[in-house]
């Protein structure tokens, strides 16, 4: 199968959906002729023109809010934030408007908007360009939150997100953009809300998502050389959360390591641990272990950043720990 990059997968998914459905349009900063800060809209302006690929002012509250209004009235805007770090600025739009409108209004309208935004660190981009805020938005009912880890998943999930009649936050890890992977020429979609076992195993379950899936797979590979069989469950969607996939794997391996790039308190990883403590407690042979960022903002200097963010060695140590317990 041909291999394409993660960012190319984003472009393809968007272009295919734009061809399929004339109500799909793309808005953001520098997403027209410029092609997007990370190249995820390359070629769209040329193919679909200025009515469907619209460069916005630096007005996140305004243009994401416009996305909500447009989505409620017949368009399907795919709105890009240049970095997800400032999703704080349009957060009222997401938290108090988009997520609640359909419900508060008794189902009379829907808000089929996709908000795409790059997340993540490991780039020496410092405290305001390295964040992963998915946990905060996963807390809010009425938003779907997706974080693919491969070009294949990115393409299939983005197509589903664009077709979804609800607001979907689609977070793309910056370290993944240039990674390549097999993506079929034929059309396909991947359902939102389904985890994927990226590596089957029997001794320990690792639950991870986004860039941490790659780090977990690398760790699993190393551990395999010592005869330790790690199952890597890629959540892919953190809201809704595929509880069944988590529980099935944990019931099988009876040991759980959760790996996420961001902070631990009130996070996706906390939720995964809580679900297991509620629904599979008796299966656990060892305390749950979480591998997360340390409890500080992301520092600039690479030596500091690497210390704060999870590394392969941390994952390996965590797996050893749950096996020892």
């Amino acid at each position: 199968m041909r291999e394409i990059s993660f960012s190319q997968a984003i472009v393809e998914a968007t272009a295919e959906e734009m061809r399929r459905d004339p109500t799909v349009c793309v808005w953001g900063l520098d997403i027209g002729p410029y092609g997007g800060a990370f190249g995820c809209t390359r070629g769209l302006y040329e193919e679909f023109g200025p009515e469907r690929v619209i460069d916005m002012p630096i007005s996140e509250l305004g243009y994401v809010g416009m996305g909500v209004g447009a989505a409620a009235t017949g368009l399907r805007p795919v709105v890009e934030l240049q970095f997800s770090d400032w999703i704080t600025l349009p957060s009222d739009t997401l938290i108090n408007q988009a997520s609640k409108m359909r419900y508060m209004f008794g189902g009379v309208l829907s808000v089929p908007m996709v908000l795409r935004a790059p997340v993540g660190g490991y780039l020496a981009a410092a405290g305001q360009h390295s964040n992963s805020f998915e946990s905060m938005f996963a807390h809010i009912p009425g938003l779907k939150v997706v974080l693919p880890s491969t070009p294949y998943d990115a393409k299939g999930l983005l197509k589903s997100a664009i077709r979804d009649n609800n607001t979907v936050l689609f977070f793309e890890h910056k370290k993944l953009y240039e990674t390549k992977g097999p993506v079929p020429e034929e059309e396909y979609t991947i359902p939102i809300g389904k985890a994927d076992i990226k590596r089957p195993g029997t001794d320990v379950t690792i639950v991870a998502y986004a860039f941490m899936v790659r780090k977990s797979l690398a760790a699993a590979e190393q551990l395999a050389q010592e005869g330790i069989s790690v199952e890597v469950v890629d959540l892919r969607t953190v809201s809704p959360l595929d509880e069944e996939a988590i529980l099935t794997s944990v019931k099988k391996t009876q040991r759980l390591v959760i790996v996420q790039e961001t902070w631990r308190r009130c996070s996706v990883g906390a939720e995964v641990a809580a679900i297991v403590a509620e629904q599979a407690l008796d299966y656990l042979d060892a305390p749950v272990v979480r591998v997360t960022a340390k409890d500080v903002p992301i520092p600039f200097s690479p030596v500091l950043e690497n210390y704060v963010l999870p590394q392969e060695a941390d994952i390996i140590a965590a797996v050893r720990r749950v096996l020892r317990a």
Partner: protein
Amino acid sequence: MEIPRETLVLMLELMLKIRHFELRVKDLFAAGEIPGFVHLYLGQEAVAAGVCATLNKDDYITSTHRGHGHIIAKGADVKYMMAELYGKATGYNKGKGGSQHIAWPGLGILGANGIVSGGIPIATGAAMSAKLRKSGQVAVAFFGDGASNEGAFHESLNLAAVFDLPVVYVCENNLYGVGTRQTRVRKVENVADRAAAYGMPGQTVDGNDVLAVYRAAREAVDRARAGAGPTLIECQTYRWRTHFEGEPDTYRPPEEVEAWMRREPIAPYRQYLIEQGILSTREAEEIEQHVIVQVNDAVEFARNSPFPAPETALEDLWA
């Protein structure tokens, strides 16, 4: 500007309907029949009526916490509104929204909004949608003087100007945001003075003169529909009641309240219509009686409607 008789009469009817609806809500809230909070539109009727009389059924509006007037003026049935205020299953939004969150896309009503300025970007987006779909629709964002100090106002007006969107921004300047007088939170005299910062026409009108409101709105809506871009209209008006029902009025000079109540919008307009021979006194009376009956029926409807089944609370989240 020639205004059709039908429209002239409609504006009276809308104002009366808002007036009687709100007077009734006031009493029902005081009597404990309506839960939660209500923010009444009494005194500002000419703005909603004058603006919405220029709109088509499929044009969009976004509204505010003080939204009953806009929603009635845009054509909503007071029965379903009242039921919503009561939290009944028969309300426009099945009791999930209440006073601050009535929406009905079938009439272009994209929602009242509990977040001050929250509707402004949404209306702007609806206008973008109308433009891209080439539907010929126009969007109106209603908001208060207080909302014009929010970032959403600035960003939206700039966006609308940049893209020449078919949207009209209607600021209802009632001098106060809760207990704060506008002159203490804004240095420019008129909110409409801010339009220039976006390269957009701005106009201040007497918001208690429904004809003045209508004329300004007509022009702005026509401009918008013709593709000539957005307008900011400031309507100077006053709310009779405190910010929300139950709030003591500690902050407004009684003379000011009285003076504005004497300048109320409906009686002089009715007088005008009669003097102009557009309506007879009797016809005017009939219109008023008719809306009173509608409001009474709405109360009965609301009272007799069932509460939603508790489990329906889990419905309507996902599309």
